């Protein structure tokens, strides 16, 4: 189920696999917060991390960043990067609000057009990267400012679209079959991306391109077309994230999704996907998203952090520490095996 797994020796390879270690870290993290972050309040009700409401909040708060991380996984597998997804989220939220509020379109029509706009935004990235052979980092740095600037220009920085109908807010604020509605949408997209990356020749092509674009071209892969597709897909998913974001907050404002691209990239890299492309998995990305979301929400429940009013600062600090630790940790087995092989030789 993942690209880097060697199938040689039984349990050792399962345990030493990066995803397994990350899963253990996630579970430990969860129990830590469950242990220290759950209390009983003055009225005798259990409050804090150990409540079902809190778990649902974690799901709801991580859906949009989670979607962006899923969008970025194929991109990063091809050794690309997309810094514009957060800005595109903001632009799509504004477009959706404008089409519905000022354009008089129905919610489904406005949503469909927003998804098209997202794909077009991704298409712009794709065109610049594949046709003009510009580096993805620079292209998406440009569209990062461009999309956000457009969102601010459309609203003059002043308009906030609100008063969306209850039927639309259902997708961001209510539950369906026991879970927050957007969690189902997220699961659907996650399953689709997993199938695409791990069960189709397309997914194999993404990794091959990431390893060596020249090699992929010699092997007859349509490199440009595949690369273009991952950016269009990223734009489409960013638009979906914009709809969920708007439904969750009940408002569309030009600052929607500011900084989300960096959280998403962090989640992907924490999930074990190599920033140089070629190696990584969707499962890892999901675990990375979960590890960051649990950390962020869990910290806000710890009495000591609450007293210091430092949840936001602490979560930034610890997310950074976790990422650096994971990167260091992922290098250790390699160092260990090279040490052992040298040792055996002498």
């Amino acid at each position, binding site marked *: 189920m993942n690209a880097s797994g060697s199938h040689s020796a*039984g*349990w050792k390879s399962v345990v030493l696999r990066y995803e397994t270690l990350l899963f253990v870290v996630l579970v*430990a993290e969860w129990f830590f917060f469950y242990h220290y972050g759950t209390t*009983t309040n003055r009225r005798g009700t259990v409050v804090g991390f150990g409540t079902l409401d809190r778990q649902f909040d974690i799901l709801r*708060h991580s859906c949009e960043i989670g979607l962006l991380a899923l969008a970025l996984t194929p991109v990063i597998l091809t050794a690309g990067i997309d810094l514009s997804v957060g800005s595109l989220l903001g632009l799509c939220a504004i477009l959706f609000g404008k089409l519905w509020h000022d354009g008089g379109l129905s919610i489904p029509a406005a949503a469909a057009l927003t998804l098209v706009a997202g794909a077009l935004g991704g298409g712009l990235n794709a065109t610049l990267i594949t046709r003009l052979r510009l580096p993805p980092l620079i292209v998406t740095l440009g569209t990062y400012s461009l999309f956000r600037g457009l969102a601010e220009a459309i609203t003059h920085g002043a308009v906030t679209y609100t008063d969306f109908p209850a039927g639309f807010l259902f997708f961001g604020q209510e539950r369906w079959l026991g879970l927050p509605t957007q969690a189902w949408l997220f699961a659907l997209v996650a399953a689709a991306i997993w199938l695409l990356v791990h069960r189709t020749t397309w997914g194999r092509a993404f990794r091959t391109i990431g390893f060596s674009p020249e090699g992929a071209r010699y092997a007859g892969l349509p490199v440009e077309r595949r690369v273009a597709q991952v950016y269009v897909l990223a734009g489409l998913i960013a638009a979906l994230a914009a709809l969920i974001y708007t439904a969750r907050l009940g*408002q569309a404002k030009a*600052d929607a999704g500011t900084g989300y691209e960096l959280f998403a990239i962090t989640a992907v890299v924490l999930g074990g996907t190599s920033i140089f492309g070629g190696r990584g998995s969707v499962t890892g990305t999901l675990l990375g998203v979960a590890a960051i979301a649990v950390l962020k929400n869990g910290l806000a429940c710890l*009495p000591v952090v609450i007293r210091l009013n430092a949840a936001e600062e602490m979560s930034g600090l610890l997310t950074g520490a976790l990422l650096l630790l994971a990167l260091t940790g992922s290098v250790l087995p390699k160092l260990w095996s090279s040490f052992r092989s040298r040792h055996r030789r002498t």
Partner: protein
Amino acid sequence: MKNPLPRILLVLGLLAGLTSVSAADGKLMITMMPKAKGNAYFITCKVGADKAAKELGVELLFDGPTDSNAAKQNEIVENWITLGVDVITVAAENKEGLSTALRKAQKQGIKVITYDADALPDARSFFVNQATPQGIAWGLLDEAARLCGSEGEFAIITATLTAGNQREWLKLIDERLAAKYPKMKLVAVRPSDDLKDKAQSEATALMSANPNLKVIVAICTPGTPGAAEAVKQAGKVGQVKVIGLGLPNENKRYVHEGVTESVMLWNTSDLGYLTVYAAVALARDELKPGAKTFQAGSLGSFEIRGDNILLGQPFIFNKGNIDQFDF
């Protein structure tokens, strides 16, 4: 060949069984959210709020976004809901956006009070109103008119173009401008995101785009020192005058240097103090809808108009009196 995962999970499960439940110490838990945590205006609010919390023997949590960000405000309110606090008090960055989360809090039995910037009326019990919008808007415009002799160009720096209170003040300024000062021209309204350095760069841009500019009016507290610094650096002291809402300490220097003519504000520390007193009274069922007055500790009695608890009239600080205040 055995997979060790089940064993690891078992150990962790046993650990979880030891869930610590801290003893409920019976203190009311009051929360206070500023629009932005680092804004000096809200830091002085906290000073008064802390004092009130100490006097009343309640616990006060003060937390908010590091920048004026409506989405983060929602997440913090949702966090407080699952923490099961008793009262949530907020200065809303975005009326409609935050009201959804506040209504959810009310549904769970948490009392809600707004201060400084209101949410929608059905999403809170009371609004602690620092000054009537008319008092602020007209006060600033009249002061601007006095400085430019009721004619010429002036510009406004606001916090964000979406904030409810700022929009209301702007509307009132527009109305009075048309009715009373037909020779004055409002050339631009620029947002500063409640940040001093952004206000400074906006003021610099305003001055180069409008060479005949006479007065800059800042209707958010970081805007006033920001605009003053811009005027000073541009060497236009005396030519462009700055007035606005502002804390005395942040503006003393500019007032004495003659860059800023006067700053207007209410006592922000009292605003925090009154908000916490109202929150506690609400939680203890001592403050009920329909009340006409409210007693807040050492500050005495306050008028309640409808569901607005009024702090009183704004105050003008100038060269003559600014040194008497320290906040």
